[in-house]
């Protein structure tokens, strides 16, 4: 197994600021917008973006939630392991809101397909957008594309993109791992 650094902490920081600005450009005061981090790995990105928006761009009262998609996945009973769920925390209605789904890596698109179904349990949003830090090009199984992307990556199927976060893994770094 070999791994190489795809993005360093400094590069990730620049990307996060650009993504925050792009969100700001489209959503301005976020009065009608809710940010939803997809469990388990999208919540770190969602928290980080919210922090930048509130601390550096003075956006107040951003509605931030986390969504678990386990029970909406299409690969139940297809793998060896039982799928274990994470917490869903959405303490607001998404009815009529502009929802931004946030996940770290966009790969086959199946997680996002599940998230699109799962979010409907909380109401009918006005629109749904997708933000992803890493977009793995040419690997989609479904017609799903991000509205905001940090970096586009060409990786073959045997390779894995791993995103580490300071608050969970000790440092900010993104690896491309060859298994």
């Amino acid at each position: 197994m070999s791994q190489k650094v795809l993005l360093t902490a400094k590069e990730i920081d620049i990307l996060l600021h650009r993504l925050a600005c792009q969100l700001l450009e489209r959503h301005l005061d976020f009065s009608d917008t809710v940010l939803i981090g997809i469990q388990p790995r999208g919540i770190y990105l969602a928290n980080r973006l919210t922090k930048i928006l509130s601390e550096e761009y003075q956006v107040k009262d951003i509605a931030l939630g986390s969504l678990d998609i386990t029970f909406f996945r299409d690969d139940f009973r297809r793998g060896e392991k039982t799928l274990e769920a994470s917490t869903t925390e959405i303490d607001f209605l998404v009815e009529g809101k502009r929802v931004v789904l946030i996940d770290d890596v966009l790969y086959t698109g199946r997680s996002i397909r599940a998230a699109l179904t799962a979010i409907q349990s909380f109401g009918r949003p006005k629109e749904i957008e997708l933000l992803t830090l890493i977009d793995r090009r040419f690997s989609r199984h479904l017609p799903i594309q991000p509205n905001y992307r940090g970096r586009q990556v060409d990786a073959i199927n045997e390779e894995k993109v791993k995103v580490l976060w300071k608050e969970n893994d000790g440092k900010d770094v993104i690896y491309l791992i060859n298994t």
Partner: protein
Amino acid sequence: MNHLLGIKYLTEQDIELIFETADHFKEVINRAIKKVPTLRDITIANIFFENSTRTKLSFELAEKRLSADVINFSAGQSSVKKGETLIDTVNNILSMKVDMVVMRHPNPGAGIFLSRHVKAAIINAGDGAHEHPTQALLDTFSIRERLGGVAGKKVVIVGDILHSRVALSNIFALKLQGAEVKVCGPRTLLPKHIESLGVGVETNLRKALNWCDVANMLRIQNERMEFSYFPTTREYSQQYGINRSLLESLDKEIVIMHPGPINRGVEITSDVADSDQSIILDQVENGVAIRMAVIYLLASKIK
């Protein structure tokens, strides 16, 4: 683990996994849209050879919340009356492409027997006076929710221990999770050698209540009693029923549980059953979440 036949066959880790999964399902059933599509390719048969209201409803609701297809079968209206054997009955149902069977049966061990002879995941929903695992899971889940944990808690199970599958499964589940357990009731309704399960025995209700954090009040199962175990219902109620004045005379506030159906005025009075100390309706709500967790975890093993 491919079946849930009794708490006896579970480990502490199994229970922890079921509880964590149930936490997520409890969040799901409190949403505006209470359904998830996980089990849409699974068919479940609820086979009840004995009467049941809440367990059957609770299982059926849990199955539907998970989007499984459900068929129901009650022995009263079936070919069992015409002399069909249990294995034949179940195999006939399974040939209609059923993946999982939830069964209640008056004979102890019926689920275990079935699991050896048919090709389906079996959930025991009560087998005679033997076990009722999902009830014990939801009872201890409710204790964990109210008191923050089960380990180290003192629980007394009051009433008809002799005929109760709820008592046996609860004893296993509580001991496995590190609780201290006593049983309390008239001598005639306490099985001999019950101490060998590691539980204390107390015949004085006031002493038992003063000792415990939680009292689980069981129903007197008249339908299982072929002769008299105590002189009159009134006398039982005076010695082993709880009422407001008894609870207020205790040194501390205890949690009151009851698996239902309640005989109001016999083992528990209305002012206690409907008070803040009682978590009887929480038990019912948690029952759906626990059963969703059990069905989900077992269904994930079906290939």
